């Protein structure tokens, strides 16, 4: 049996799906109402899953007292109440689809030292969710 722990975090942000590599018509056709020039927003839920041995002294894979402030600092402070396209440098050149947001959050969390980040799962709305578990080792 293997064990993992998942913590759920929340942030609210706006974004606009628009690619400068595409024409106006193509942007409208591909992204539809998500291409609206003023942007729109979501309440995002982010699930961060960690794995590793359970420390017998603490009963924990990693202390939430370490994980929570790490995620807060690396992700929530940078994303919450922000316009992702402008306020998060990585999305100035990358379309902030939730696929890309998932990958960016995973990247920001990989430096967590107390456990391995196994998965980042984002619910953009209650109907859409996205998961990233890193690239398979080659």
């Amino acid at each position, binding site marked *: *049996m*293997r064990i993992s*722990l998942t*913590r759920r975090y929340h942030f609210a942000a706006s974004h606009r799906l628009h690619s400068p590599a595409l024409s106006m018509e193509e942007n409208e056709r591909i992204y539809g109402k998500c291409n609206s020039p003023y942007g729109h927003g979501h309440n995002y839920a982010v699930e961060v*899953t960690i794995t590793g041995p359970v420390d017998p002294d*603490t*009963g*924990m894979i990693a202390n939430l007292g370490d994980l929570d402030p790490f995620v807060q600092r690396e992700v929530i402070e940078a994303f919450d109440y922000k316009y992702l396209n402008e306020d998060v440098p990585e999305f100035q050149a990358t379309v902030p689809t939730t696929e890309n947001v998932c990958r960016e959050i995973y990247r920001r969390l990989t430096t967590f030292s107390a456990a391995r980040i196994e998965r980042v799962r984002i619910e953009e709305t209650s109907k859409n969710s996205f998961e990233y578990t890193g690239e398979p080792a080659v």
Partner: protein
Amino acid sequence: MIRITRKVEFSAAHFYHNPKFSAEENQRVFGKCSNTHGHGHNYTLEVTIAGEPDSATGMVLDLKELKDILQREVVERMDHKHLNHEVPELAGKIPTCENVAAVIWNLLEPKIVRGTLDRVRLYESEDLFADCTAEENGLKR
């Protein structure tokens, strides 16, 4: 292969304290969870069984049978109990979400005779859960 999941809920008290640690260390490591008077949660347990449906019944296992196993092994043991004091399987362990989920896995695994225990997911709150998964399925999930 089909996976079926049954959900049950139980409410229990716990606190985190390691007798090997000093009072200061317990406070530093476990924070507000270290209050030895305890605190409580409404736990939600999701148990997933994997298997092939029986050709005669169309079922992997009878959900009534699973419900009875969960009632007997988990709810009767843990519902409205203090996990530090009243659950012998947790004696000597810190009753974290990880450890409680692992104890539940070990209680259920020998009782599942139709299909195999695939995943135990224990929610301590809606923002925190632990998953135990069968070793060989770990990489597929």
